[in-house]
């Protein structure tokens, strides 16, 4: 499970059409709110809170039967949560609309404990790609197995394939993403390795670290606390922060990269010296927001992705261990992680507005799912 890693970034990918933004001119008397989406966040002891964004009230919960939720993965069609529990052994599939557990399984049996680091459902919910590791408890010792990339068939509840790691380099952790049509699987990292999803043979490898001569070493990071979240971005696209180290002066610079996975295009620009900024794409995809945490100094950033520049940066009264998400209408910034509070800030002025308090501590990532007006393009799965 990805442990909270300061300075990572994650992205929202919108499948549905962007919800209508409130008319710009009209200064609504009602207090600024985040839009009409729904907020989901998992916590102690075994539930996922459902919060209505407009009223900021908990309107319901999803109960997990397999213990404390730990790593929540929202399917790309925004219909299901795939949850891994705190022991990393149980997977549970919850249908959001009906709030019911569709399926759950674990691979551990007897003294052979199988821990699942991360998983990604295929768009048709037929199977899961998982990174697992077996630890066996023998009579007087334990044996730790290698980390493996495995395909788990949801119908037969069996591991159907183990995919050898690209160029033999074992990875404990990687962000997995299917292409919108489900024909390709991307293993994201500084090198994006691409598998076709029939025989899972490696069809391509796209080394991002030398994208352009003279640019030098590029490193991009995907997914943050709680897994890769691409709700706000176009399908097949990833907008993420990157750092670059030029080969001549070895200076490290920060920039924004828009990656077209399907056409393997890497459109990027640098905007300043490298810093620990945790980048988030706004739903309108014209803006991005950043959160920089240093000891005793916390800053909000706003990026203008069209003019390719930083709109503003300002310090605010933050605290250690914060993570950032934008509201579905892009007007609010949510600060969550560690504890039972979600703080709301005005995205334009960075002013603190109010706090949503939950009655249990948060243990998973946080999803802001905009209201889905248009029917979902991908066919609904089982």
């Amino acid at each position: 499970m990805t442990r909270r890693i300061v300075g990572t970034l994650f992205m929202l990918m919108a499948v549905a059409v962007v919800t209508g933004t409130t008319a710009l001119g009209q200064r609504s008397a009602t207090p600024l709110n985040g839009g009409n989406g729904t907020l989901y966040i998992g916590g102690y002891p075994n539930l996922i809170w459902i919060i209505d964004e407009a009223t900021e009230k908990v309107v319901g919960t999803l109960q997990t039967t397999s213990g404390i939720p730990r790593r929540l993965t929202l399917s790309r069609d925004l219909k299901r949560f795939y949850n891994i529990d705190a022991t990393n052994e149980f997977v549970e599939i919850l249908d959001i609309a009906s709030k019911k557990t569709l399926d759950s399984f674990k691979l551990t049996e007897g003294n052979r404990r199988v821990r699942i680091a991360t998983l990604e459902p295929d768009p048709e919910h037929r199977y899961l790609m998982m990174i697992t590791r077996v630890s066996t408890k023998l009579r007087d010792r334990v044996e730790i197995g290698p980390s493996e990339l495995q395909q788990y068939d949801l119908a037969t509840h069996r591991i159907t394939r183990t995919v050898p790691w690209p160029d033999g380099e074992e990875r404990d952790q990687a962000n997995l993403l299917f292409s919108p049509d489900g024909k390709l699987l991307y293993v994201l990292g500084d090198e994006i390795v691409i598998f076709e999803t029939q025989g899972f043979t490696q069809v391509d490898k796209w080394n991002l670290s030398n994208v352009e001569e003279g640019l030098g070493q590029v490193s991009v990071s995907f997914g943050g606390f709680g897994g890769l979240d691409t709700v706000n971005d176009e399908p097949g696209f990833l907008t993420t922060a990157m750092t670059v180290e030029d080969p001549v002066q070895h200076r490290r610079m920060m920039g924004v990269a828009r990656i077209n996975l399907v056409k393997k295009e890497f459109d990027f620009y640098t905007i300043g010296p490298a810093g620990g900024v945790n980048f988030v794409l706004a739903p309108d995809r014209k803006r991005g927001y950043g959160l920089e945490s240093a000891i005793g100094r916390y800053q909000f950033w706003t990026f203008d992705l069209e003019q390719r520049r930083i709109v503003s940066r300002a310090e605010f009264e933050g605290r250690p261990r914060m993570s950032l998400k934008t509201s579905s209408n892009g007007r609010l910034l949510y600060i969550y992680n560690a504890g039972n509070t979600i703080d709301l800030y005005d995205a334009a002025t960075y002013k603190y507005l109010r706090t949503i308090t939950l009655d249990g501590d948060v243990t998973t990532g946080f999803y802001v799912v905009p209201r889905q007006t248009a029917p979902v393009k991908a066919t609904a799965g089982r």
Partner: protein
Amino acid sequence: MRLRTLGRGLVGIALLIGALPLVAAQSQTPAAPAPPGTATAAVDEGIPVTDPDVVKACGGCHVPDDKRRMTRISYRRATPENWELTVRRMMSLNNVQISPEVARRVIKSLSDSHGLAPEEARPIMFDAERRLIDFTYSGDKETHELCSRCHSIGRVLSERRTKDEWNGLIAMHRYYYPGIDGASGGFRRGGPGSQANAAGRGRGDSTDNQQPIDKALTHLIGALPLPSSEWTSWSAAMRTPRLAGRWALSGYQIGKGPVYGTVTIADRPDLPDSFTTDGRFTYTKTGQTVTRRSRAIVYTGFQWRGRSADAPDDPGTWREVAFIERNLQEIKGRWFTGPHDETGIDVTLRRVSNDPLVTGTDVIALRTSAPAQRLRIYGVNLPERAAPTDIDLGQGVKVSRVVSAAPEMLTVEVDVAADARVGVRDISLGGSTRPAALVVYSTMDGIKVVPQAGMARLGGVTMPARTEQFEARGFSSGPDGKPGTPDDLDLGPVDAQWSLEEYTATFKDDDVKYVGELGPGGLFTPNVEGPNPNRPGNRNNVGDVWVVASYPPAGANVAAKPLRARAHLLVTVPIYLDWNSREVGR
């Protein structure tokens, strides 16, 4: 990493290891039905286990081979404390049912047959003595940083293992704490392309792509192997030390000054290698006399572990950890108490015959050109009718009058000449000499605060608080007149005024208001734990502050600027686990 964090006991509650069924161990339900033969081929350097109790208690899973070498156990040597940790884990996580008595016998037996040699144990005595010191393992920087992320490096240095055993230890870590591979432990870098190592990667591809834990493993296999010449020779020489008899005690407790007295050690018939002690010692500063009786067990022939014997004024709270020198003439270590073992006396016991033995003095600094300075000399069998000339303090220092003389203490007045040479002095009386007992100085050039890096833990609501005792000590720059050089002289404790100052780690630091109080005697008592509603962001009362001592030099006029010194104090969060070793020495 740097510190031997310690101190996790809960006062007074001798909570045994859960309500252990007193049923003698019979059928351990082995955790896994794997047949005995599957243990990896035993490397022939294992140490056989000959004690039937151990074989009975542990043989269920650790199957002995034809040379009586039990899997895992025979390929490891460790300190008593580490053996206790392992036995406790076997009982808590591998559902082994043995009675406390059996557990203690197993720990004792394995510490004797699979322990560390004196030379191997001496550098890490601080670990067992629960000392809060600034220790950096110089053997390998990366191993130090990796292992001391969670516990002190002392625990690692208390181990000697074969290659397979080190591997087994690391596998245990990764089995029970899966997060240790990732960000929480940093054992592995997660392979290419994952964030874990993107953040840590320097320029371009990290040329050295060995996992951190593998590098540490290679070091440990090389630096701390199972076979060692020290152990081979010590295991031959080891036997129950003959300690019965009278011992002279001298010690020092920070904040309360020197202690002197005597201790009688007697054999304890009911348990092998065990002793009882009956002692009396006096704090020279206050004259307070303490009587103490304790029970102790000696592990591996030189590791003294004692506990006070539940006397009415001392309900079994003081513990004794000491190192018995091979000549059985001297035992040095630390007696300590307190929820975090923070209150301690550095103790030295010296064997007494019937000749006089000088152990030390109350005041350790004598000023030049100062007549009739009162000095008390402590020891045993001191001559009743000592003449001033019998006491020799070296050039320029003359005993002018013997005020009183008793077998355990002499009170004298000393004249120090103006031209007495500045430096460390020995004291001789009746054929016994105590080297470096005193210091002759001309001026006190400054003061120092000890410890230089203190730590206190919030507590008092549910979690035990950890106080920190500071002390201001005078110093003279010594003959070369330059401070901070080897010839500086420590002039002993001085009564300074104490205050706290903000250690401004960030611009809006306000820790001083919340962390706690620093008493007039230099004792810091931390505030309570838990979120503090009237502190911004519900912060706990944590913080780091300067502890400042200021002391007007003796005899200086009021206007003169006082001597000042400071030390760093970290007031941090409580610790929710008590790793105190409760069985060793019982």
